[in-house]
């Protein structure tokens, strides 16, 4: 309901989407660990399958635990509806599946998570969905990459791993002019730090695996529909605007209006491709979301302290954290994420590749692993791990050159994080 008295962010983190169970009164969200749901009668079953009634059929399509997670993240992002998926990559697949036809093109910027670069360059090519790369720090390259076949523009709000903050509103203008939706991966910022829909994004995607779940225990992804894009205007998105054969000629945009995109991803992409989230993981991620504000605030505070310290260290050549005054992205950070530039950043070692490999082996408390957004502090040397499949040129473009280390700062006492880095750096040179 669009009324003026929408509850505030911290309240939504705890309450949005969750109402006590109608039969038991359970207050915390129950884990509906079931594959399927009984029908009242044959007509009820037919109505559910025909999308004429709201309701659960089978957990691949929807599940009540998952639904709480979806409504909550959609409310936090300021969207109309969401679809949770098995992983962030699964969510990305379903977005493209709804919007792209074979032979179509899309524009993505190089400042992306390495896994997304791989997904676009290799797996999506097999579907004949063709990427045109651009540079997030030079909007004219995005404009130039748009062609008549372009169906969407894909960016990250804060890019992984480089600490680049992207000009969402500027890129949204280009998307508007091209008549295509702007898709924003908001994983590193979370809606606590940045709400891209307020800056013109049409679709949000998250890896829930990171800060939203926040405890490093569950894979998950989500698609949030802003409800802003007119899918029927030019007929360029037939999945949404044209009669849908597998639903007897139903038109999804006409029928579902402001939630049509989220519904299309659910009743076509999820139904047919199947990357659904487990109810248990949905529950654990809901649990994480309840403390999202508290955690993100502390993540950002700790990160400033550690980034400042590294910035002064003799063996550190540079620190790329948009939260630091004087950083090349600090201005954009103040505009798009004034409460903090997130907790993931990179720094370069004077000792290059060799020193990087040593530091990740020397850390004691800090975990050497391929994730971000955990209560624990994490470190990785991207060029020998996450970005290893990319060429050196691509690595550098993605902010993951040979000398680069990436940190994801946790919620420990910052002096203990610094102490561990201090000894790891000391014995690396």
């Amino acid at each position, binding site marked *: *309901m*669009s*009324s*003026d008295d*929408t*509850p505030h962010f911290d*309240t*939504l983190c705890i*309450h*949005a*989407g969750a*109402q*006590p*169970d*109608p*039969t038991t*009164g359970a*207050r915390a969200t129950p884990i509906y660990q079931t594959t399927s*749901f*009984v029908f*009242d009668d044959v007509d*009820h079953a037919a*109505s559910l399958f*025909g*999308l*004429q*009634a*709201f*309701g*659960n059929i089978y957990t691949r399509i*929807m599940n*009540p635990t*998952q*639904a*709480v997670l*979806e*409504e909550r993240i*959609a*409310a936090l992002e300021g*969207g*109309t*509806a*969401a*679809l*949770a998926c098995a992983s962030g990559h699964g969510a990305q697949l379903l977005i493209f599946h709804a919007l792209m036809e074979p032979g179509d093109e899309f524009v993505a910027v190089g400042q992306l998570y390495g896994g997304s670069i791989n997904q676009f360059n290799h797996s999506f090519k097999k579907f004949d969905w063709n990427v045109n790369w651009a540079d997030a720090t030079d909007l004219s390259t995005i404009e130039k990459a748009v062609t008549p076949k372009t169906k969407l523009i894909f960016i990250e709000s804060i890019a992984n791993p480089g600490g680049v903050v992207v000009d969402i509103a500027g890129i949204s203008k280009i998307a508007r002019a091209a008549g295509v939706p702007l898709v924003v991966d908001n994983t590193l910022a979370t809606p606590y730090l940045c709400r891209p829909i307020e800056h013109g994004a049409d679709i949000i995607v998250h890896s829930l695996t990171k800060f939203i779940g926040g405890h490093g225990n569950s894979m998950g992804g989500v698609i949030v529909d802003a409800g802003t894009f007119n899918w029927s205007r030019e007929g360029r998105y037939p999945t949404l605007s044209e*009669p849908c054969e597998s*639903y*007897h*000629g*139903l*038109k999804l945009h*006409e*029928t579902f*209006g*402001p*939630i049509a995109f*989220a*519904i299309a991803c*659910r009743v076509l992409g999820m139904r047919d491709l199947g990357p659904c989230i487990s109810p248990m993981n949905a529950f654990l991620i809901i649990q994480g979301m309840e403390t999202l504000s508290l955690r993100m605030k502390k993540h950002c505070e700790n990160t400033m302290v550690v980034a400042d310290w590294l910035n002064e260290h003799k063996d550190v050549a540079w620190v790329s954290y948009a939260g630091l005054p004087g950083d090349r992205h600090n201005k954009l950070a103040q505009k798009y994420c004034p409460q903090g530039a997130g907790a993931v950043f990179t720094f370069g070692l004077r000792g290059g590749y060799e020193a990087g490999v040593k530091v990740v082996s020397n850390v004691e408390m800090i975990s050497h692993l391929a994730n971000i957004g955990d209560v624990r502090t994490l470190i990785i040397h991207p060029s020998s791990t996450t970005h290893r499949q990319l060429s050196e040129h691509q690595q550098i473009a993605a902010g993951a050159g040979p000398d680069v280390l990436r940190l994801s700062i946790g919620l420990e006492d910052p002096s203990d994080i610094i102490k561990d880095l201090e000894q790891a750096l000391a014995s690396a040179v």
Partner: protein
Amino acid sequence: MQHDTYSEAYIRKILQDVKTIAMVGASANDVRPSYFAMKYLLTKEYNIVPVNPREAGREILGQKVFSSLSEIDQPVDMVDIFRNSEAADALTDEAIAIGAKVVWMQLRVRNDAAAERAEKAGLKVVMDRCPKMEYGKLSGEWGWLGAVSGRISSKRAVLFGNRIQSLSIATRGS
């Protein structure tokens, strides 16, 4: 009254009070949005009177179809307009004439001049909304789709009769 946003209380009162809804532009085609809405509202036990001159005399979902609002042989509480914004002009005047208490224009249908006339005549007006969606937001069913209702409540949802997977907008205890 402004019609960009509606309070939860305003929509709830309308959907709790009305019993008979004349649905103008009701379709017999079972993949049309009007058919979806009609089928859903019937399960919530509203009395739905379909209006569609091309289907007049036939039945849609077991309900007799009338050719126009003025031919309906029973009192109508609400007129639900499944036509375009232009057609809503004359239909609003007809709704006033037959003594309806509410004019409801569907998603993407908005006619501010007609709304003003209806309000002057004492009717309530809702525009650019779907009663099925609004019912779902108030009952809690909307959230099953991962969609945002904008509601927060620590009260148990209310089951509709003895059905499963069907929630009601009735106030608990009423």
